């Protein structure tokens, strides 16, 4: 398995030397990074090339890298601090912080499977614009991308250029915002209940407070710093 991944990797590097950014094998999985302009070209190549033949698209998913590597508990300053509660709000201050985020915030990750050659690949594509993330739709290459891209649009607000029917899919009719973004609070913005007097369902600002039960901590584990090997 890992040998065939190596050959596939070198084949991709040869055939698409200037188009592919990074091509790595980690945990026996091959990941190819590509800029949005080349995504569609790469998709077609991966589907049709004789040694790729990825005829099935398994998954498309969005990732928001806004808070990547951030922790909620600082243990480095000598004494332990309390768990820090992140205040989420859509005030202007928070908005500015979001804009100030450096680097590329949104990524689209595509998982492909070749039934004929029994191999998998992951294609990663970072969107250029953090405020208006957009990549080309691969719906024309694999039909199954249709709903997966709708989901990524719904959850992250990533736009797919050329998608035939880019509507929301999982959230409620009339929903505002993109819930899986890291600046969208876990508890959401609105509560919904049935109002006895108005005889209809009403939306109200959330009445509960967000709590963090277990803070997010990053520990540099000695065991994982060299290449991950068996523990025994």
């Amino acid at each position: 398995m890992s040998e065939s991944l190596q050959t596939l990797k070198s084949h991709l590097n040869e055939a698409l030397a200037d188009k592919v950014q990074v091509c790595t094998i980690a945990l026996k999985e091959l990941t190819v990074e590509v800029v949005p302009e080349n995504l569609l070209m790469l998709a077609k190549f991966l589907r049709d090339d004789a040694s790729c033949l990825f005829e099935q698209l398994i998954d498309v998913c969005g990732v928001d890298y806004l808070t990547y590597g951030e922790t909620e508990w600082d243990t480095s300053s000598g004494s332990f601090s309390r768990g820090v509660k992140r205040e989420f709000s859509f005030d202007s201050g928070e908005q500015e912080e979001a804009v100030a985020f450096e680097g590329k915030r949104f990524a689209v990750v595509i998982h492909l499977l070749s039934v004929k050659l029994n191999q998998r690949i992951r294609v990663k594509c970072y969107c250029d614009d953090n405020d208006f993330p957009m990549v080309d739709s691969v719906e024309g290459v694999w039909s199954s991308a249709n709903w997966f891209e709708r989901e990524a649009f719904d959850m992250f607000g990533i736009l797919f250029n050329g998608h035939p029917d880019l509507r929301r899919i999982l959230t409620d009719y009339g929903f505002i915002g993109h819930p899986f973004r890291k600046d969208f609070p876990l508890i959401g913005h609105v509560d919904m209940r049935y109002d006895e007097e108005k005889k209809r369902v009403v939306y109200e600002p959330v009445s509960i407070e967000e709590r963090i039960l277990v803070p997010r901590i990053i520990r540099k584990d000695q065991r994982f710093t060299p290449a991950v090997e068996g523990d025994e």
Partner: protein
Amino acid sequence: MAEIKNFTLNFGPAHPAAHGVLRLVLEMDGEVIQRADPHVGLLHRGTEKLAESKPYNQSIGYMDRLDYVSMMCNEHGYVLALEKMLGIEAPVRAQYIRTMFDEITRILNHLLWIGAHALDVGAMTMFLYAFREREDLMDVYEAVSGARLHATYYRPGGVYRDLPDTMPLHEKSRWTDDKEVNRLNENRGGSVLDFIEDFTTRFPTYVDEYETLLTDNRIWKQRLVDIGIVSPERALQLGLTGAMLRGSGIEWDLRKKQPYAMYDHVDFDVPVGVNGDSYDRYLVRIEEMRQSNIIIKQCVDWLRKNPGSVMHEDHKITPPSREEMKGDMEALIHHFKLATEGYCLPEGEAYAAIEHPKGEFGCYIVSDGANKPYRLKVRAPGFAHMSAMDELTKGHMLADVVTIIGTMDIVFGEVDR
């Protein structure tokens, strides 16, 4: 002559044949479907977002609630992804237990599928038969995990505990007299393995019963044959996996092609359809139940002969035993750390997939080195199947929509997540 126009029909979300909360907006020309637009998401709970706010182990229970008729298989997909990133492997006995329970779960899932599918198409009896057998298997779930549905039995590094030596017995109640209790407890005298083995000897006869009722049944065939045909090429394009893909004649089973757990150590066959219609998928799933039964038998034999540990020894990841914890300081520290913050995964990303009863179930985890996932994406087979709804129903009659929903084996817990 009267002018006939296309009209739009709303199907669901509270229709009994919608298998949960599917809302279909159908564009019809008379009784023929022109376009089907499924509105999903009525059961969206944001599982992936919730998982981001919890230590890894606390999300195992959420996995049960995705596809709530094949609970342990979901857990398996998630746990495998974690193990891949941690670089650990469960002990062999735990892997056999997982293999066995994956197959028990597959039977559970297919029983519900055939019951609901037949009920939709008009065969009430199947539903009752299927639930009779499900009852036994859910008792097995209960015996090992304490819960009949949402087991939370698998852990990264093994399974929660070894198979118990006794099977819980039925007790006398207002509704069951001595005679009835004795009948119910007849097979439950021995260990859980004895009970499972007893089930595997009974089960093939049950499957024969289902087949007697359905396979050559004229109504069943009229409703299923040539309904929802998918060509192999389209099946791949549409992202269909599992029985939906095999029904179209593509021999693809992750248990064989990319083996996990102990599937490369057990013998079984992969049934494949020919025509790619609903009837072929029915035959494929029936045969899968028989094959699952064979796998369970092999696992029971192995588990009888090979006692041993069912949890990984590394207490940075798996909690030490209660007994150790009371006497050993280090074990206490390990337990405290695991209970208060859990364990951290190394930075990176991984995708692990299993052959779920419905298709390929995969978990994609992005970790930034924290004790919670940075992003967890669940690849649910039902989501891809549902997206093929429009293509499968086009040109069929309204009544066939019900057959197609049934043949896709849709469960909304996983479609909406």
